[in-house]
């Protein structure tokens, strides 16, 4: 095997030329275009990242504004609720005051009407009391003699049967006839009472005298089983009984 050194040298130079050719016309242009493409990719990624960051910032800004809006809305709602509560309380207070006023006025009117009614009632009672007193005292004897005459007039007006029953009551029971007067009778008056009554009720009647200031005025004859009242107190009781049904009706 022979080696042609000229050929070896030429091929070495040729290969170095090939290296230069490929480096000049292939590697450098391709590397440049690849680097430009990578740079474009980096720029695109950077721009995309920037847009993503901008979008993220816009999202954060939106969320912040939304949060602020929600907070403001909650504040407005709270303020509105407070205002409504205050207005409600004010209205309730006004209504309560108005109701209290109406109630006080009603109470005052009721009290006034009650007082007027009471005054009217007092006047009615006074009139009634006056009327009752007038009726109770009308024709009523005010002294011992007049009282005796009133009793005797009453006994004389009784029927014989009634008078006989009174006598029998005294005789059968051997009881006493008690003469109750509102004021103490004098001895002379007692003698007159006794003699006048014995004439009408018989000599056998035992007569005793007593005092009862509750009779107000007048006297009462207490038989064992009957009472003849000529007192003002009894008269007032009768008037009261007479007036009650009329008053209730």
């Amino acid at each position, binding site marked *: *095997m*022979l*080696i*042609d050194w*000229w*050929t*070896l*040298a*030429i*091929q*070495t130079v*040729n*290969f*170095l*030329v*090939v*290296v*230069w*050719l*490929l*480096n000049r*016309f*292939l*590697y450098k*242009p*391709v*590397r*440049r*275009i*690849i680097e*430009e*493409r990578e740079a*474009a990719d980096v720029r695109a990624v950077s721009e995309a990242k920037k847009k993503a960051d901008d979008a993220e910032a816009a999202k954060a800004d939106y969320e912040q504004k939304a949060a602020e809006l929600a907070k403001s809305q909650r504040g407005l709602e709270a303020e509105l609720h407070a205002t409504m509560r205050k207005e409600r309380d004010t209205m309730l207070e006004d209504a309560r005051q108005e109701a209290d006023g109406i109630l006080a006025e009603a109470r005052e009117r009721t009290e006034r009407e009650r007082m007027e009614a009471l005054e009217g009632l007092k006047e009615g009672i006074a009139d009634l009391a006056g009327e009752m007193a007038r009726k109770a005292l009308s024709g009523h004897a005010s002294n011992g003699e007049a009282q005796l005459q009133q009793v005797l007039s009453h006994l004389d007006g009784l029927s014989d049967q009634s008078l006989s029953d009174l006598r029998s009551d005294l005789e059968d029971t051997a009881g006493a006839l008690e003469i109750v007067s509102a004021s103490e009778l004098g001895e002379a008056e007692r003698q007159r009472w006794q003699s006048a009554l014995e004439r009408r009720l018989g000599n056998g009647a035992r007569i005793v005298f007593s005092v009862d200031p509750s009779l107000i005025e007048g006297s009462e004859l207490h038989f064992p089983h009957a009472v003849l009242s000529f007192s003002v107190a009894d008269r007032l009781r009768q008037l009261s009984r007479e007036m009650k049904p009329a008053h209730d009706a």
Partner: protein
Amino acid sequence: MNANPLLPDTLFHLGPVPIGRAVVTTWVIMAALALFLPWALRNPSMKPGAVQAVLEIVVTTIARQLREILGRDPWPFMPLLGSLFIYLCLANLAAVFPGASPPTGHIETPAALALVVFLSVHVFGISSRGARRYLRHYLEPSPLLLPLNVLSELTRTFSLMIRLFGNMMSHEFVIAILVFLAGFLLPVPFLLLGIMIGIIQAYIFTVLSAVYIAAAVGAVEA
């Protein structure tokens, strides 16, 4: 075609300089590259056409392979290693053209390439690691191994040359024998086989060169 591929295949002389078939074929390849590449990449675009896309794929594929072998930025090594692969592919495939013979089928061309690789290994090693540090690796792991390390450098370069030459030369031999014995049609499958052998040999030569350079430039860059 020269009947004996082991002998120089001189076509003509330029003064005292013999111009062989291998040299002419290389010139044709150089002319084709000088015409095609400026035309193909006359207006490189971000959106490449079909030709630009193919060229980009070829270059980026080579760069990716070199990055895996070297473990560092491949672009400083692309002019040498990428050119080795492309030139070897084109040179080995020259056999398919009638009247042409692969330049690598003659010892001068593989020797020239192996010489360039041998020198480049040292240039890259010294420029990357510094002269003292680079030369010190011949004394490792022991200074006693210096002769063996130097011998290893020479023999691996020699094997690089002989491997390429032997494969391509033997392929030419087989084709010549088949043509002599069976005519013109029978060698067609062997020509197709030759295409595959040519690409594989280009790949092996380039990869081994990259491995030698990677060993010379040292550890992986950060």
